[in-house]
């Protein structure tokens, strides 16, 4: 535990003393802000239109900031994350391999799991910080309105789990190569594939093969969280994907020990 903590601190430190973390944070926040601002402006426009119709004797139509703004926004945050996660995970093993510090780590009294978990949670913390910057939007929305809290909470839980799964996969890919660019590119392609695989079954049906494809897709599981629906299926999917990523990382790190 203590060793994992040490690695965690070392990695987190490496993220935040280099400009890397800030580049990720700024890029993400800038893109998220653009989406937020556009969503907000269009929501207000919609709201105004509906109010005008009601004043002219039309039927009263409600507007709902949770369903008409936050839900779409949170889904979009996951799209932006798709571009950012490879930048977060690309260095975790590739850098150590490239700098030759991997041998040092492997010959140290640390176990593989301690190294992997330390690195994993450091990367996940950076991801959480990145997602956390968007809480500013929620604060603003609460200031100007009365959004429902629980669906927002479940949305953020979903985004965290989504990140936990993808960071796991990114770590595995990073452990395969010492080239950070290759690591980032491959991670991006794999994530994009896991994203789009659900669209192969875009006929939304209960046909089993299409259901399987949709089940494998990372985004299909996020939608319920973002709606405000908590389902153990999605929890299990994300946690097992994260575990699979970590397990494969372990196998990959272990193999460098005996392959020499």
């Amino acid at each position, binding site marked *: 535990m203590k060793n994992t903590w040490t690695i965690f601190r070392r990695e987190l430190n490496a993220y*935040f*003393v*280099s*400009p890397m973390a*800030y*580049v990720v*944070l*700024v890029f993400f*926040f*800038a893109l998220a*802000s653009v989406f937020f*601002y556009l969503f*907000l*402006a269009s929501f*207000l426009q919609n*709201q105004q239109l509906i109010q005008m119709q009601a004043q002219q004797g039309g039927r009263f139509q*409600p*507007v*709902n*900031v*949770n*369903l008409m703004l936050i839900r779409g926004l949170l889904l979009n945050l996951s799209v932006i994350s798709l571009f950012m996660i490879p930048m977060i995970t690309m260095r975790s093993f590739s850098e150590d391999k490239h700098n030759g510090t991997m041998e040092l780590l492997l010959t140290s009294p640390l176990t593989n799991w301690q190294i992997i978990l330390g690195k994993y949670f450091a990367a996940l913390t950076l991801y959480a910080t990145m997602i956390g*910057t968007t809480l*500013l*939007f929620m604060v*603003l*929305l609460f200031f*100007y*309105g*009365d*959004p*429902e809290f*629980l*669906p927002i909470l*479940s949305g953020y839980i979903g985004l965290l789990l989504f990140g936990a799964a993808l960071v796991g996969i990114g770590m595995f890919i990073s452990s395969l190569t010492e080239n950070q660019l290759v690591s980032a590119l491959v991670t991006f392609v794999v994530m994009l594939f896991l994203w789009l695989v659900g669209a192969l079954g*875009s006929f*939304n*049906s*209960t*046909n089993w093969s299409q259901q399987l494809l949709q*089940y494998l897709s990372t985004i299909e599981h996020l939608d319920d969280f973002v*709606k*405000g*629906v*908590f*389902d*153990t*299926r999605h929890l*299990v*999917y994300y946690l*097992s994907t994260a*575990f*699979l990523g970590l*397990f*494969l990382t372990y*196998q990959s790190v*272990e*193999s460098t020990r*005996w*392959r020499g």
Partner: protein
Amino acid sequence: MQKLWKILLWVGIIGIVAGLVLYSVVGLWRWYSVTTEIVGLMLVLGTVIMNFRIVVQALGRRSTKYGISMVIGGLFVLGILAAVNFFFYRNNYRSDWTQQKTFSLSDQTTKILRNLEKDVQVYAFWNDNDNARNQINELFIEYNNISPRFHYEFLDVDKNADIAQQVYAIEQYGTIVFKTETKEERWEPAPQFGGARPPQEEDITNTLIKVLRDEQKTVYFISGHGEVDLDDAQSRDGYGTAKAALEKQFYRVATLDLMSSDRVPGDASAVVIAGADKPYLQHELTALTTYLKQGGGVAVLLDPSPKPDFREFLSPFGIAPDNDIVVDPSLENRLFGGNPGTPLVRQYGEHKITKDFPYATIFHMTRSLQISGEVGALAISGGSAWGETDLSNLQQGVSFGESDIQGPLNIAAVTSVPSDSVNGKPGRLVVIGDSDFANNIQFNTQGNGNFFTNIVSWLAQDDDLISVSPKQMENRPLNMTAGDLRIVLYVIILFGLLIIGQGLRVYLKRRR
């Protein structure tokens, strides 16, 4: 020599894969795919046997051992994860965190789905790019979540034109076909401006109930005393619209002549008396009373005098029609679309027929009803209404007089009739002071049509057919002006600059 074996091994492996690919493309084992497969297998096996010593040596090597154990371990973990995911896929816990339970189905629907004993396949003919499709898909996801026997598929009418036209003869865009092994039911959207109206939970569940139902129930309308015309879908007074609505709910609708027979047919699930001009003969009323006491369902739709009041038939059950016309001149009544002679009802008794009933109903020229004992009021007029008893001077205007009956008044009443056998189920009786409310003109006004079909469903013991009010989105607006929007923009920019500033600070500190 070693090199040759290596090449042969690879050729063998490629042969095996190619054989499988050929099979998957053609879908059958043909001579060429079988040959490729066999040759590939023989090459691989041959290579392994001929180089058995080297293979054993390689197996003995530490790295091979590790490699094999790694692959086995990996497959093992993958298998466990797949099993865990499958288990939780089938046994999930789902909870809707929204305050209004926006994404949950009603209790009735849940109950029906939990008890689903047959597989139901649903084909929704909605195009891929129709916005309403997502809305329907979200509903279907919830249905399928509760019962895996609820299967669904969306079919784009344009892309699957052949299936839509030839197999299902889809005439209207947006039709949803429900199929079991033995039966087929369909839901068709009412046409509206700007595309078809997507189905609500109520529509989907009711169609589901209908497709699960095995027998077709019959509703009889008694004829021969100047009652409403079931086959007239055109004129004001006809009941063609009501008949069509009942048939959509999978009822057989027929007329019944009681004058020539002394009893109600055994296949009658409900009997409706609507707008009779002349009083019934004694033997007809006796037949109806017997039918009620045997567990039947009867609806009596009266009208003000001079039409008969059925007092003799109804009073034993605790219902006495007044000899009046309900008048409601209040502003409220007018505001919501009524007029003095057409009271609007927004208050209903507690009963399955009107449970969670979201609509108002209007009754043009109606009697009021006095009720006693176990009888429940079903539809109740506003408090400012009264029952005008001076029917001779209606033309000169009406005002509340001494002999008039002060509101609120009962416009519809409901009661159960005890069975005359020991363990028999009780009969069901509904009385309404008006028969016009379900005619061709008024059926589609306010909630009149729903009120009528709900009554018939209850009489026919179809308590499971439901009426769920469509979920209204909760109003959660933002109170922002254009100025506020600008403030938001500045706050965001400021926050972004803070992150950049912190990054620069770290960067410069490292440079020093």
